[in-house]
């Protein structure tokens, strides 16, 4: 689970990149490639290693004019999945 004060960041060796051959955004990680959909990309765009999870979801809720709790649930599921695969570091405040 992600707490509002958790600060997520992409560790060394994990990064997003625009794949200009396919015209999609991808997440590159050790020996793995994930194709990112619009939602995943929007979430990762806010992950800068300083913002906490609460700030990230508030920003997304404002930008997409969507209920904050639904955004938080979606983002927690997505980021939690990355974290389980060690594609995301999370520092608890």
């Amino acid at each position, binding site marked *: 689970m992600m707490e509002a004060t958790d600060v997520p960041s992409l*560790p060394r060796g994990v990064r997003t990149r625009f794949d200009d051959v396919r015209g999609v955004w*991808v997440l590159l990680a*050790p*020996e793995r*490639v994930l194709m990112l959909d619009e939602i995943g990309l929007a979430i990762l765009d806010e992950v800068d290693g300083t913002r906490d999870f609460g700030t990230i979801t508030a920003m997304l809720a404002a930008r997409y004019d969507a209920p904050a709790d639904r955004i938080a649930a979606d983002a927690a599921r997505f980021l939690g999945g990355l974290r389980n695969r060690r594609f995301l570091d999370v520092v608890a405040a």
Partner: protein
Amino acid sequence: MIGIARPIAMLAELTHRCPLSCPYCSNPVELTHKAGELPTEVWVDVFAQAAAMGVLQVHLSGGEPASRRDLEELVAAAAGAGLYTNLITSGIGLTRDRLLALEAAGLDHVQLSLQGTDAAMADAIGGYRGGFDRKMEVAGWISDIGFPLTLNFVMHRRNLHQLPRALEMAEEMGARRIEVATVQFHGWAIRNTGTLMPTLEQAREADAMVRDARARLGGRLVIDYVPADYHAEFPKRCMGGWGSSGFNVMPDGTVLPCHAAQTIPHLSFDRVQDRPLAEIWYEGAAFNAYRGTDWMQEPCCSCNRREIDFGGCRCQALALAGDASATDPVCSRSPHRDKVRALADAAAADAGAALVYRTFAPVP
């Protein structure tokens, strides 16, 4: 080209040279000598072609890729082409300075092989005295520099009991991931089936150890596990499906749909010196031979798993069923399943045999 996906990954076997001589090495039995290796500029061009086709990651492998003096230059070229670069190494041949140069060249990730968890085992399996101590030194530099690290533990009858320690070592080294791969019987390993094939009991023990470790280490260490397919119900999917997501380039420029594809004698392969990489991928005879599902026979063609495992391994089908289009005989639905049983029984009877290490044929 309609319907053929772009490749995502390329395995670049830069060289077959290696200080180690593991008896299960996945390199072909006929190893390429140094004189037959592609020069730097051809590899540089291959990386650019691969990136233009949609390849996103390159796995720099061998043999031991550090045996190439131009490794740093090759990493820089691959990274410069936009590829995510992964070094698959035994560690032998790397120094702290070389690792720093690789970091500067843009190397993204290191996969370090582990032949055993102590010097006695590791050096006996790798056939290289002092290799284990050297590897531990290299592992220290890798974590000091901060490279993301995956440990690769090839598991077999002789070292399977060391799995718990291998998991601990992965944690101690700060690895994010460990690949626990039960030995596959291709190439050199076929000469060592008796000594290397785990028993059914060992395979079950490994399953249980992995299950427990995953529960305990979830979120800290990712465990990718390749179980013993000869003791499994269904075969494993090879290369994500033949010609569907990746390819291998051999030291001499031959492009293969999988490691062992050259054991299928009726296939013909193209080389990067003779044909553009994209043409080899989309039109090459070897790539189209077993792409998709059209080539399948029963029971695969009417099986609900045909797009899950793509009928398993073509090379194993040829080796055991005598037909590369047959269902992989490790499949419980294969009519040749008894041959796998017979192989396992023969292996058990031959468990005490001496290891046969990989070697180069004399220079002609």
